């Protein structure tokens, strides 16, 4: 049980405080309800580029990192399709430095052309390093536009195309900043050895006088139901073929999310899962076979990802995956499989509680979903999943017409 207190400032900033007495540190985590799903299809990668600019300093604090380091802290951020998240972890007696820095860059960011030019170049190199110069690096970039035709999940947080980053101008970035970087569109979560009363007092001191701005209130087009199998084949300079199969699922706040999360654990979460056991060990089709949820807030994907063994026909491999998924839809999982998944959930949940920064983000994320208390109630969601729910959800989701497939093949030599 993670105890926390919640308070909303007059300008709409939601503040969550978790008192962790076991650490000398504290994490200030600020989550903005703005991700790549909020971008214009002609200007993708903006939310992430903006994250880079948030480290570029203000007229008041020209070098963002300097005070963090002087205070003995470390900081970073990430952007995904749903949100942008910034965190600073530092000795708890310096919490105020973190709040000063966050409140300052919520209002006074330096968006000059020079800073922008450099970060466009840095992001271009990030794109190359993480997606183009890595074997199999572009696989998920290919998957999104295949699986989504309408919803903005059809592009990755890094952007649809690198030319969008190259074209980004400071005018649209300033609009993005003014629109989304406001107290009413943010959640501040603080976890560490500071009492909630002090957290609320300091939050009010540093953020209280910032005008509310607008909350997101996004209206996104729903992805229409997929009604036929989609497939693409690409050839790349890689040593082994790779199969990706993705199925549409319900959103993060649905019961289906928890059911399928356990399903992916039963299939591929551990070495004795059905995929390692059947597809890797017994039938020797794959050298590794994974399955996971994309985990997005709007309806997302459940993704199979498997590296083929040499000489295996990819269509035969795909048939074997379908057979395993079909087995879930036709018969119940065993009580031993369910118990294993529950034990694994319990130990992984406790492991995630070891770090105050994990707890800080998790609380903010659940608050974004609607209630920070979800961090505690989701245990019951997992523990109560039944074999029948698994069978029913599997037959609903793992249908051929709901599937997008990538055959990622080695270039012919």
């Amino acid at each position: 049980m993670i105890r926390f207190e919640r308070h909303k400032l007059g300008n709409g900033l939601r503040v969550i405080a978790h008192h962790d007495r076991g650490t000398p540190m504290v994490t200030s985590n600020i989550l903005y309800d703005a991700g790549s799903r909020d971008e214009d299809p002609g200007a993708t990668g903006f939310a992430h580029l903006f994250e880079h600019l948030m480290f570029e300093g203000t007229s008041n604090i020209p070098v963002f990192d300097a005070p963090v380091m002087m205070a003995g802290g470390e900081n970073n951020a990430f952007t995904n399709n749903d949100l942008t998240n910034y965190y600073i972890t530092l000795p708890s007696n310096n919490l105020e430095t973190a709040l000063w820095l966050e409140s300052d860059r919520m209002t006074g960011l330096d968006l000059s052309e020079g800073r922008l030019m450099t970060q466009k170049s840095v992001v271009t190199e990030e794109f190359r390093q993480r997606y183009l110069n890595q074997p199999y690096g572009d696989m998920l970039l290919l998957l999104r536009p295949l699986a989504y035709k309408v919803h903005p999940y059809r592009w990755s947080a890094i952007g649809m195309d690198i030319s969008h980053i190259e074209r980004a101008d400071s005018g649209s970035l300033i609009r993005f900043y003014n629109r989304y970087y406001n107290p009413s569109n943010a959640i501040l979560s603080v976890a560490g050895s500071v009492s909630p009363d002090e957290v609320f007092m300091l939050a009010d001191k540093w953020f209280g006088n910032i005008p509310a701005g607008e909350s997101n209130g996004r209206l996104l087009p729903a992805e229409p139901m997929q009604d036929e199998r989609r497939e693409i084949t690409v050839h790349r300079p890689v040593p082994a073929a790779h199969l990706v199969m993705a199925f549409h699922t319900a959103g993060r706040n649905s019961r289906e999310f928890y059911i399928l999360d356990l399903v992916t654990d039963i299939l591929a979460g551990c070495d004795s899962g059905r995929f390692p056991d059947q597809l890797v060990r017994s039938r020797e089709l794959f050298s590794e076979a994974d399955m996971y949820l994309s985990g997005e807030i709007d309806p997302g994907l459940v993704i199979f990802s498997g590296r083929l063994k040499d000489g295996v026909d990819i269509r035969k491999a795909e048939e074997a995956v379908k057979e395993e998924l079909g087995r879930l839809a036709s018969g119940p999982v065993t009580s031993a499989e369910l118990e294993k998944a529950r034990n694994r959930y319990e130990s992984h949940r406790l492991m995630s509680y070891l770090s105050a920064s994990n707890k800080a983000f998790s609380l903010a994320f659940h608050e974004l979903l609607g209630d920070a208390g979800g961090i505690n109630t989701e245990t019951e969601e997992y523990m109560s999943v039944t074999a029948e729910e698994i069978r029913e959800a599997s037959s609903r989701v793992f249908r051929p017409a709901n599937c997008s497939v990538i055959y990622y093949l080695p270039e012919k030599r």
Partner: protein
Amino acid sequence: MKPSAIKTAPAIITPSAGDTSFPEKTRLGNGVPVYLLGNGAVDLLRIEFVFNAGQLVENVHLAASATNAMLTEGTVTHDAVSLNDLIDRTGAVFNHTADKDNAGLVTVTLTRKLEEVMTLAEEVLFHPSFPEKEFRMLTEKRLQAFLTGRQKTSVIAREVFYQALCGERNHYGRITTPDDYMSLTTADLKEFHSRHYRPDNMYITVAGRNPDQALQVLQRHFAGTGTGEWQKPVIPELIFESAGPGMIFREVGNSVQSTVRMGWKGITRAHPDYQGLQVATMILGGYFGSRLMRNIREEKGYTYGIHAVAGAFHGIGFITIMTDVANSYRDDTVKEIKKEIRELCINEVSGDEMALVRNHLMGELARMFDGPFAMAEAIRGVIDYDAGADYFTRFADTVRTITPGRIKELFNKYFNIENAFEIIAGAK
């Protein structure tokens, strides 16, 4: 322009490293050292077994990592499938660790499953069966991963760097080929296992809430009769035949970026300059605002990241700078790296920069000691390389007292730009 928040900075309290004292060491009945790290907040125990069973002691290349990976692929009492089923039912994590100098197993378990998990840990560490079918599958998988690595400029550059620096007649500089995977046999693994996975060749760390509750269980499983008394690990003598410094280019066809790696021979942990060199390297390329990051990333935009590290194995230390840049930027990147080093050899860092790095390192030390799980990871390097129980306390002292003059001296002593290894892996 938005209306701004309060501008006045709050006062910063100078961070301290906190309590950096080394954990209590006790021993099992047969002498196996056990380090206890307490005060965990949740009902989990992290128990790590470390053996002097890395590449350092192998006679056949790749035997150490293959032996380690095969531990959970079947034992004398359970085949691979039922063994993994038993492990997974406990909810525990079994992580294999195999590096250049050591190998072992990290287990993380719910406290209530401790007995079951240690029974399984004893089984996989001391009674593996190395079945042929699982070994063949593992070999195929490892070979596939190796070939995938051949496509990565960063992997190629790292390999070439350590080969040039250490020479090929030791495990740090040795080059791996597909044949190394294909010629390895289960007989090699069985031989390696019987020689090195022994209670008299290991130590254990226990981290979590009330770690001493694990002692009795460990005693039962790892201090049985007839296993011999624990001995201080023997480090074999190593031969280093470094190539001369200079520029080496390796072509990686079609790569959109090149990896640039520069470096020098460094010093080992026992050297009086070692800790100072850590601070110097931090200034050059150890944090977001470091000299190299500011220049190559934040001013030029050539890269997503550039880092400098000073480290050490047994018998040899190294200093290395690494970055991935577009092919067209790589020459200028090398030039700029040299420019930054030259600057640090000529001019002392300012008091502000010195204070920044001091405080940052103090914060890092505090984070390394933030909770028993973090500490268990931090102390590994100190134990494995016999760096002394006062290592972190001495490091905190160095960080507090080192001067800009001393930093400049270290740059002149260890970063000789005329004499660097320069590796570039990328498209022609």
